């Protein structure tokens, strides 16, 4: 499914882009991240644990930064599994300066496979956007900004 959203974060555009385009730092922004392994300057794997009222969901993901334009654009693809379910995503983030902060808009193609596709069909879009939101908030913190707007 196609999901999109936007958010303004209180971090300078260059600094935020630097986080989002660096596998090591990008990995750190993932919710409940663990077992990070950096393959090269574009690829990394990590186990994320996005938390909802249901509990923490363990998803082992392989990410790749497939496209980048300094300070303005980054496209990341990911493929992960959780038991017999599978999550595949490609998310494109576009950054624009917004005063002191950065306006980020994203659009993603998210595909869930397995029984979760059925169970989470109503919520996938919301859940994904919430996770992107959390990543950007964490990214803002990592980029040196003290708080978000």
């Amino acid at each position: 499914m196609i999901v999109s959203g936007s958010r303004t974060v209180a971090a300078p555009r260059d600094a935020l882009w630097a986080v989002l385009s660096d596998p090591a730092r990008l990995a750190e922004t993932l919710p409940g991240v663990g077992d990070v392994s950096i393959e090269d300057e574009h690829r990394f794997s990590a186990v994320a644990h996005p938390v909802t009222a249901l509990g923490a969901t363990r998803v082992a993901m392989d990410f790749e930064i497939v496209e980048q334009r300094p300070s303005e654009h980054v496209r990341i693809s990911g493929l992960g599994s959780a038991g017999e379910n599978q999550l595949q995503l490609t998310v494109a983030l576009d950054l624009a300066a917004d005063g002191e902060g950065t306006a980020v808009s994203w659009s993603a193609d998210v595909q869930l496979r397995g029984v979760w596709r059925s169970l989470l069909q109503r919520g996938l879009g919301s859940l994904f956007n919430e996770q992107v939101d959390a990543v950007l908030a964490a990214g803002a913190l990592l980029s040196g900004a003290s708080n978000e707007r």
Partner: protein
Amino acid sequence: MSTPRSETTFYPAIEQSERLGNWSGKNVPRKEDKRLLKGQGAFVDDLWMHRQGHVHFVRSPYAHARITAIDVARCEAVPGVYATLTGEEVGELQQPYFQMAPEPAGAMKDYCMAVGKARYMGEPVAAVLAESAELARDAAELIEVSYEPLPVVVDGIATIEPDAPVLHEEIGSNVGWHGTYDYGDIDWAIENADHVVRIDRLHFHRFSSTPLETSGALVNWDPGTGVVEFRTNNQMPMFAAMFIGPAIGLGIDHMQFSSQDIGGGFGIKITSYTYLTALALLSRKAGRPVKWSESRWEHLAASAHGNERTFLDIEVPVMNDGTILGFKVRAFDDAGAYLRYEPLGAVIWAQVVPGNYRFKHVRVDYTESLTNKCPVGPNRGYSRLQHLWMIERLVDIVANELGFDRVALRKLNYVQPEEFPYETPNGCIYDSGDYPAMLDRALELIDYEGALARQRASARSGRRIGIGIGSTLDSGTNNFGQSRIINSALPFSGNGEAAIVRLDLYGEVTVTIGTSPQGQGHETTAAQVTADILGMSPDQVHVAAGYNKAANTYVGFSGTYASQFAVTGLGAVMGAAEKLRGEIIKVGACMLGSEESDIELADGFVRLAANPEAAIPFIGIAATVFANVAELPGELADSVTLNCRYVYRPPFEVPDHETKTGKLTLTYASQVHAAVVEVDDETGQVTILDYAAVDECGRKVNPMIVEGQVHGATGHGVGAALYESFEYDADGQLLNSTFADYHAATSLDVPHIRTGDIECPSPFTPNGAKGMGEGGGAPLSTIASAIEDALPDGAHIVFDTHNNSERVFELLRSAAAAGPRGVEVISR
């Protein structure tokens, strides 16, 4: 005493028993019920064996993907994991299953697990055997499967286009079967008709009658004897054996199948042979019994679905007086990823070519296609209900478009009561029926006049009233020779079932049958006919519960499927009981020193009709034959076993491959249903206000059981019409693989069903009964008809079997849009 019937010009004369009636035809409470009500049933998940391991299947998340690697090392290292099995191993251990399709689809290589490629979401790619079910599931998460995704095709028509991704390279296309059925002269009819009604597209959706008990098995490959024991709820074991045996090198003498209680089947449990094969291989590999219980999501995603069928370019020639001459249509049946009972669906519908009507000219261009979806299996009403629904749609549409009354149009075109036995354009013989009377009865049960008044009163209220009619057939007792219409090389024809009725050592009467019931009450009805023939009470007859290949008797067609038990199963029981009766009388006459003609059987005694005091209990007969045989004259001792087997075989011939004609089924139970629905203008929500089901199935052995089948089939139809539909996204992901989103109809959803009763005994069966239980999908036709009746003028036709709120909402909206309606009329 039997009466030869001579008027059956279509079949050799048969004898119908006159002995039935004391118990047959009565609402005898079921023998099965005590154990089921007390929780004492033995379902497959209730069974266990010493040293058994539990199986968990790892399933493909992809609908179409190459499997590049499977790593089981981490899984096998877990303490308590006994074994794993991968597709790669299966490719070496198993021969591809026998295929019923002719070339090119006959070249399909189908295995019990994905070998090299997964072709639908949920297809098993590996299996784990472990000491507990929990551990098997835990350890399965450690199996690493690498996939290379492939393009997915889920549309049953787009899949045969040249650019579609091919599922099975060995076939070279996604066509599972193609052929044209051409009866009469449809071109002449279209040319000479006063009107031709053209319908663009009708779609019969994918659903399952999904039994409450999922599939399961306890399988043990005995290393000592080499016998593989399958304790399973598969509902057609001899069909399963035909696939499993050659695939893994087992003769029928090395396969044992058994089941006691089965928690519903409806056809969906016929094609579980793939899982049984995998379990057998795992058992051999691990040297242990293996147990598997399918979860509901596995069942919904990866057991079997009912056939989805799309009808394109329907043309219906109609005369000014309303006579419908026939129709032509292109049908595309979506079989999913593999042909596992298919392509039999490509011919089974031909049992009911003209539906309930006197249509003379029919052409069906039929394509069975393959897609990246769960393989289909025979689901209640299999292949016929799709066709019958299309016919009922076109009858309604003709009525609406040409301004005929729907009731009058049906009555005009129905096969008339005096025309039975009626020969259809393709040579099938409808045995008996009275469709106009059934329609009258159904309309009476819904208070048709009152409903019409409510409909008028509700006009413009926002709560639209619609009245619907559905007339369908439940053809029973297959002639398996029809398989030769799709593949002339197949070695099948006719049908049959076996039973043994014996007088046991201490005077007990025991019946064993080759059937595998799933709630149809075979123990009870078999006891009823046996009791009638042997002059005793059903309580005194023991019918072995369930299927047991070793202990019971069987033929190649044994099982419980396709509306035939009342004919084939009871035909076999009656034949065996008559043989036993003859033997008992012979021995009794000898012991009483009388003529056989002086003997009668009553209350478990052999006695002289003229002097009931002169009587021998059955135990006396048994004791003499089994333990005191020296007192019997030699010729009796040599000829009497008190262990009587009979195989009932319907009088079929082999159908003609070239003309695609023949007698494809023996009996034709029929249904006329009627409903009143309310359609909410604002939301499209449909509420059933009144529902009537009039079913006719010949002479009933146990009317209560028959009515229960009518209720059940109606429930499935209502559920499918309004709530139950398997939907895949473009990626081939099933969007409702649990009961949370596959809404199995509840007690609030199935309406109060008024049933009506008409009895037209079949002249072709030994007891006048017809097979029944599938129900023909009458509710699907009825509800579509009622919704269409509720729509405003100018609305699009009801084009789908499944009509959820949103679809009905769109139909309501279509009236104002004044766009294409999906139908046009060309008049001369």
